[in-house]
């Protein structure tokens, strides 16, 4: 790819991003996203009220949980293990499929731009759309759960969490974009991958877990886990790769998936139903 071709490609991808972002943000899928992300926010607000009233204190194995422990648990269980893969599946697999289903793909594929630029532009729109909803929601949860006095000490950790969530959305999005571009029933395959393969592979000793996204995300996760005293999440799963290795794996997965998805879109015929 020459420098001029590269510039044209990214200009086209930017135009597609501009065209798709508003459409994606105001789609019915965003209501679904608001429900997925809004649940934990409501939960956090309820927990805050309970803490203020002193009525409930969460305990695990008899050990009382601090607010940042609860925050860490919510981020891990509700976001990284659930919301992020779910959003990745539902948005990622639909990047091209939605346009095909709505029969609007013709307008994009009959313009002088590479088809791959359409995919990349839509992928960027997905990323902007989901991070714009997920990251503020997590920030609200943080401020709902963590007392103001503890904010200066833990704010850096929040930023790390936000970075990991954005990376998770990027990698899952790319992976499911590849499924969407290559498979006939990507949604089912995506759900099986996220909630079948990823769960099972994580429990199997050996190298298989390296081929999951969640394994690498957990290596980056900074929070102490609520079993005993300050046992890190990494210790729960015993072996994790180093954060640097995991970031490299995740970026490589994302790059490879996007490249393969772009190739699939370039070569595939999309037959619109009459």
């Amino acid at each position, binding site marked *: 790819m020459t420098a001029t071709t590269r510039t044209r490609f990214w*200009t086209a991808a930017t135009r597609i991003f*501009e065209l798709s972002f508003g459409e994606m943000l105001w789609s019915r899928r965003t209501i679904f996203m608001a429900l997925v992300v809004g649940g934990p926010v409501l939960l956090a607000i309820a927990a805050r009220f309970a803490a203020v009233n002193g009525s409930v204190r969460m305990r695990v194995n008899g050990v009382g949980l601090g607010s940042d422990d609860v925050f860490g648990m919510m981020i891990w269980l509700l976001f990284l293990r659930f919301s992020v893969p779910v959003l990745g599946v539902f948005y990622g697999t639909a990047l091209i499929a939605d346009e095909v289903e709505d029969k609007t793909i013709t*307008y*994009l594929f009959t313009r002088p731009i590479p088809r791959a630029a359409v995919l990349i532009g839509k992928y960027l729109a997905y990323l902007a759309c989901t991070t714009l909803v997920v990251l503020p929601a997590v920030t609200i949860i943080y401020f709902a759960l963590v007392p103001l006095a503890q904010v200066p000490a833990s704010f850096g950790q929040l930023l790390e969490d936000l970075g990991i969530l954005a990376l998770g959305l990027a990698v899952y999005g790319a992976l499911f974009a590849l499924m969407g571009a290559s498979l006939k029933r990507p949604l089912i395959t995506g759900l099986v991958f996220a909630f079948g393969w990823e769960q099972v592979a994580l429990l199997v000793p050996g190298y298989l877990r390296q081929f999951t996204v969640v394994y690498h995300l957990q290596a980056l996760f900074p929070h102490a886990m609520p079993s005993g005293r300050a046992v890190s999440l990494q210790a729960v799963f015993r072996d994790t790769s180093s954060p640097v290795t995991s970031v490299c794996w995740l970026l490589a997965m994302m790059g490879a998936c996007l490249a393969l998805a772009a190739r699939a879109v370039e070569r595939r015929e999309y037959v619109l139903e009459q």
Partner: protein
Amino acid sequence: MHEQAAVVVSRHLSKWYGQVSGLNDVSVAIPPGVTGLLGPNGAGKSTFMKLITGQLAPSAGSVRVLGEPIWGNPALYARIGFCPDQDAFYDRMTGLEWLDALVRLNGFAPDAARTAAMRALEAVELLDAAGKKIGAYSKGMRQRVKLAQAIVHDPELLILDEPLNGMDAIMRRKTIRMIRDWARAGKSVLVSSHILYEIESMTSNVLLINNGRILAEGNVHQIRDLIDEHPHTVFVRAEDPRALGRHLLAEDDVLSLRFEGGAVIVETARPDAFYTRLTRMAASGEAGVIEEVTSPDDNLQAVFKYLVKQ
């Protein structure tokens, strides 16, 4: 037709969808100017259109557009404008926003894109509705904005798949005139339809397609007489169907007439005279507002059966 001068050349072009054949061994050279692609639904028109617009890859054979292969060659779309048959849009966008966004994909700068979008909307007489959401457009307006996106970048070759569907009589006439004007301005147009009289009003150069094969190519007038022997059905949706029916029965070009919902279904033995009269009535408003004119596909199906037998 010399292939070098042709705007579209296909050689032994075939397309299969699994076991189903969409197009079968089609070899044609479409000359510059206006060419009509005429055939009933399911004849292979849309498959042919999708192949020559690079949306589908040939299963066998080859297709070249403006001298270049089209599949996997997006740069060629800068020279082609395509109006698809499907009624699909980004409904939340306004007509102007949509055209502006699409023409920017052609590499237009923001100011040039806005100017081109306005010019295209003006050409299809949608300037007044430029700021209105496409979701709120009528069927005829949607057809027109679809046409506008095909011409917005001023292409050399226009490929129009059933562009007159859903338009009222007046807009049909204007669109036909517009297509003829484009041809006069040196553009080439390939337009598909299942209505002979529409095609005939734009060009005398036709390709007849049925069952995925080109049955004939050349001058439409040669088959005209044969076709006229067949009664032609026209579906006219109107504000006041009964008033329209009364007006229509005043002349002997109507064989029979019945009402269905808000429409009149007319059988005519002289479609040419009938369409001329209908257009005049729509323009004068003497029989109220005529909202939509369509011709059911079985007209042409019957004609093709007849032609194949010949």
